């Protein structure tokens, strides 16, 4: 029963998203594009936080790497859309393997701090390495290559085309994460979160499994970074700062870490709030904090989680 209702709601939402460009203006379509990119980014973060119990404050690192590599490749006119995004994603994957190798051997606070520290080290390098990265100004991106697939050529500069492309990638990414969660590996991930000691005494290597998840999450983050670079037409150091790493964290808490789409819902709420509040004042962080605190205190399952609970409760 519950499954049917959820599926219907999901289908409706996806339909609405698919039809959005017909109804909404360019401004709002761009907002939705950003919601989807950051939503997938938050869902990747949640693989680490909600499902594996790892609070990472450094996801901006693979994200930013994806962005910068893609920007550099576009500048050098190196290949089509798939190539620049693909290489950006792959580089982020490699970086995550290295970063993960260092981070996963520590728990909780130390893991969070270490991920933050490594992310910030990358930030300072990129921020100061003017010759390659453009320093604090970042890298502007001109001439986004077309997407060439199956003989068709898609002009990604058009905001509608980019929106649909991002939408499709979001769905593919969400499905990928869905498959992972429902796989044997997903069970293993959760068991480590439940009881690290017992997992070790079931024959598993905690560090190796965590490294695996960390790398997957980093790869998806890198993909989001590449897309974000194309969307904003630039790569900037802010994308590597720990305050950027905090965004998927906030979105996941808002939307709920216990469900697949919770973080994406959180992304929608996040940007919705931003639009709503910045109409009146530039100090919208204070509202974000003012909402975050009660959500953590009273609604630990986030908006989506709490809604689903209510739905279930109503049927009983």
């Amino acid at each position, binding site marked *: 029963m519950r499954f049917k209702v959820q599926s219907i709601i999901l289908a409706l939402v996806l339909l609405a998203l698919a039809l959005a460009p017909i109804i909404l203006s360019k401004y709002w379509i761009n907002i939705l594009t950003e919601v989807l990119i950051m939503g997938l980014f938050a869902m990747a973060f949640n693989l680490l936080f909600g499902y594996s119990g790892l609070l990472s404050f450094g996801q901006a690192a693979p994200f930013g790497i994806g962005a910068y590599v893609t920007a550099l490749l576009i500048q050098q006119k190196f290949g089509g859309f798939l190539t620049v995004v693909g290489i950006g994603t792959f580089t982020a994957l490699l970086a995550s393997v290295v970063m993960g190798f260092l981070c996963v051997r520590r728990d909780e606070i130390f893991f969070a701090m270490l991920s933050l520290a490594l992310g910030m080290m990358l930030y300072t390098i990129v921020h100061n390495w003017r010759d390659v990265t453009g320093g604090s100004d970042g890298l502007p991106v001109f001439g986004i290559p077309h997407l060439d697939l199956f003989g068709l050529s898609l002009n990604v500069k058009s905001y509608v085309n980019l929106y649909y492309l991002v939408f499709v990638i979001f769905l593919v990414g969400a499905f990928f994460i869905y*498959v*992972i969660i*429902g*796989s*044997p*590996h*997903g*069970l*293993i991930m*959760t*068991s480590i979160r*439940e*009881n690290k*000691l*017992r*997992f*070790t*005494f*079931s*024959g*598993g*290597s*905690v560090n190796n*499994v965590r490294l*695996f998840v960390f790398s*997957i999450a980093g790869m998806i983050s890198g993909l989001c970074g590449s897309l974000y670079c194309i969307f904003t037409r630039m790569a900037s150091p802010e994308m590597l700062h720990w305050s950027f790493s905090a965004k998927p964290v906030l979105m996941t808490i808002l939307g709920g870490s216990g469900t697949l789409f919770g973080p994406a819902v959180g992304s929608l709420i996040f940007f919705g709030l931003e639009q709503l509040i910045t109409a009146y004042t530039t100090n919208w962080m204070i509202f974000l904090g003012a909402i975050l605190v009660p959500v953590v205190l009273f609604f630990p399952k986030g908006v989506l989680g709490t809604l689903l609970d209510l739905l279930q409760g109503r049927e009983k």
Partner: protein
Amino acid sequence: MNRDFILETQDIHHSFGRFKVLQGVSIKVPYRQVTALIGPNGAGKTTFYNIISGRYKPTKGKVIFEGKEITQMPAHKRIRIGLSRSFQITNIFSSLTVIENIMVPIAIQMGMAYIFYKRLKNCENLYQRAYEVLKLIGLQDKALIPANQLSYGDKRLVEIAIALAINPRLILLDEPTAGMNPEETDRMIGLIKDLAQETEATFLITEHDMKVVFSLAEYMYVLHQGALLAEGLPQEIRENKAVKEAYLGGSLDA
């Protein structure tokens, strides 16, 4: 190296800082002999277990499993070679279902820990094997219940089931009846007796409940203040003066 013994420890010493917990403990456990390790509180039993299972590396001494030295081997690798353990304080995967608890060690053993592309629900062999273990323990009817909703006694059963799941050669039971009422305790004694007969596993048990120990043990070691006070057949131990004194007049009667 001698292959008549599944487990051998040679002169195990262990200290935490200046505090000496174990001082030269040597035991030899033959295949399929139900062996008990007893001793008053603070004797060092849990530390000894932690060393055998790989949670600690001893300050001095050797641990030999099936003829090979494993003193420095990491804990998770020991599970892979067939050395399993249960815990005194229930240590299960609380929010997973009972059958999922058992599936974790089995999945690892079957090399499925990194399979991220298959649906778990389609892995029939995994479910099958886990169900077999549940039947052995008697929990098959509760397979789909989240583990944190079980009674304490049933949780202890899951605790042991996880250790059994990989078909271990040696299984260390750390106070399996801790916190149980008499009914649950009897059930556990019966279960361990059956398992000792029906499976290939060798059991090494530590216990506080003397009734449990004397019902199950074929051979006993007594640990006191970090050293072996006595060893022998249960009857011998029961009549051993030094052991009785160590327990300060507490009853050794079953």
